[in-house]
């Protein structure tokens, strides 16, 4: 049998996590093993502790199946040491204590025996005729050990495959029996966990775009009561705090106007609906009343007509005078051919004076 230092190093590839899956390979300690006495004592302690825990868990489970709480009200688990034990627990504790003490003495006895045996064996194996068989036996054992080491990767791989199948089922079965939410609430201090979190680092790892892309904003907006939110906003107070002049001065209106698609805005306006809502008749009436369109047209037409009519009248007057002159010349009547040479029918009147003019006839005095 070789010492731990003589063991060959563990095949790292065989023990790599990729090969073994989630199963953590067995690590061989580089330090020498502790003395046999300590090993035995520690093993016994572990065995006794596990037995105690198992018996406690079993007792709780049995109590729960009977519909009873394993601990009295206001008593936390693990407070058994606070009160003196009695009855069965007392006997059980005493038995464990006796067993532990016995284990200690047993371990010491076993250690003594082993040391004595080693001394005795060293005396027995010192002669030459004994060395040879021992060496052969050692070689034989070394061959078995080498063969095991050769097969060890395959054995571990098979075990890992078995564990890969077994562990999930065991975990599922265990989780089915456990209320994880309650367990987390009881066992985990969330504040401490959160304090230990580097949230900046967590956030830096998040793909915000992907998260936002998965959010159905339309559905969220449908549930938002915008009117209620708006009512809660103190608009007057906000507006009173704003320096609108400064804001407007900082806006590059030219750039804003350049970005506006006026054509699209115009296309989106339902002019027909707007026009239908307008009381065009009333608007037209108001405009006409304001403009006094009739007077405007009369003034415009009147000025044109007056010029035209005045021209026609003057031209016809000139023609009349020409006819009169021709008549006077042909008929030999005097008077210079002016119509005015004939007896005035009426006195000249001032057209602009209206009724200030005089009238008369050939029979008037």
């Amino acid at each position, binding site marked *: 049998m070789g010492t731990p230092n003589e063991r060959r190093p563990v095949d790292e590839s065989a023990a790599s996590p990729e090969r073994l899956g989630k199963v953590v390979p067995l690590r061989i300690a580089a330090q020498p093993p502790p003395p046999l006495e300590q090993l035995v004592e520690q093993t016994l302690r572990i065995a006794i502790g596990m037995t105690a825990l198992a018996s406690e868990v079993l007792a709780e489970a049995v109590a729960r199946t009977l519909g009873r709480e394993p601990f009295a009200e206001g008593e936390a688990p693990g407070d058994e040491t606070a009160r003196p034990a009695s009855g069965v627990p007392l006997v059980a504790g005493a038995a464990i204590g006796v067993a532990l003490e016995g284990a200690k003495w047993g371990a010491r006895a076993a250690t003594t025996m082993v040391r004595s045996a080693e001394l005795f064996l060293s005396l027995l194996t010192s002669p030459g005729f004994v060395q040879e068989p021992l060496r052969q036996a050692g070689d034989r054992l070394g061959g078995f050990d080498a063969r095991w080491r050769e097969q060890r990767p395959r054995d571990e791989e098979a075990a890992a495959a078995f564990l890969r199948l077994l562990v999930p089922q065991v975990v599922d079965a265990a989780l089915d029996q456990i209320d994880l939410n309650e367990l987390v609430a009881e066992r985990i201090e969330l504040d401490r966990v959160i304090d230990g979190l580097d949230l900046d680092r967590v956030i830096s790892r998040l793909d915000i775009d992907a998260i936002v892309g998965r959010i159905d904003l339309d559905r969220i907006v449908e549930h938002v009561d915008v009117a209620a939110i708006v009512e809660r906003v103190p608009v007057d107070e906000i507006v009173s705090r704003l320096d609108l002049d400064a804001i407007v001065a900082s806006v590059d209106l030219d750039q804003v106007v350049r970005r506006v698609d006026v054509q699209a805005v115009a296309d989106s306006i339902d002019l027909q609906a707007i026009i239908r809502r307008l009381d065009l008749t009333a608007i037209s009436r108001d405009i006409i009343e304001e403009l006094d369109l009739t007077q405007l047209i009369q003034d415009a037409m009147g000025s044109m*007509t*007056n010029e035209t*009519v*005045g021209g*026609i*009248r*003057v031209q*016809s*007057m000139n*023609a*009349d*005078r020409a*006819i*009169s002159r021709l*008549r006077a010349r042909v*008929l030999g*009547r005097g008077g210079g051919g002016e*119509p*005015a040479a*004939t*007896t*005035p*029918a*009426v*006195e*000249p*009147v*001032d*057209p*602009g*004076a*209206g*009724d*200030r*003019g*005089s*009238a*008369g*006839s*050939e*029979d*008037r*005095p």
Partner: protein
Amino acid sequence: MSVSAPPVARVMQGQRAGVVSRFLADAIDLLVIVAAVVGVYFAVSGARFLLHPRQFSWPEASALYLSTLGWILLIVYLTIGWASTGRTWGKSVLGLRVVSSRDVGLPLWRAFVRAALCALFPIGLFWSAISSRNGSVQDLLVRTTVVYDWGPKLPALQ
């Protein structure tokens, strides 16, 4: 129709109007009467259409019928114009007014007689080209005068 008179026309106010001005005024009145006849024709047609839309056809009007209608309209038009303001629309455009020999207004009966004479014997207008007083035949018979008067109102009596 009030038109401010230039100086050359201002001195002519109250003078007897010549044949050219009067002929132009009568021509305008004739156009008014033609338009009135056409209007009456379309009014009658519209009334017939409204009364009997299925059997509607444009009314057949003889020249005699239209002439008679126009003659009657002319007399009525001239009578009303001369008896009211002394001027028809044609005379208003040319700045003329018909005045009686006694006063500025023209009595209805004299206006009617003068209108009838004008409608019966329109060529009598051209006597004003020969007459030294620029009077037509109708002026001589009814004792009226046509004068230049651009003012909007009747000239006051002297």
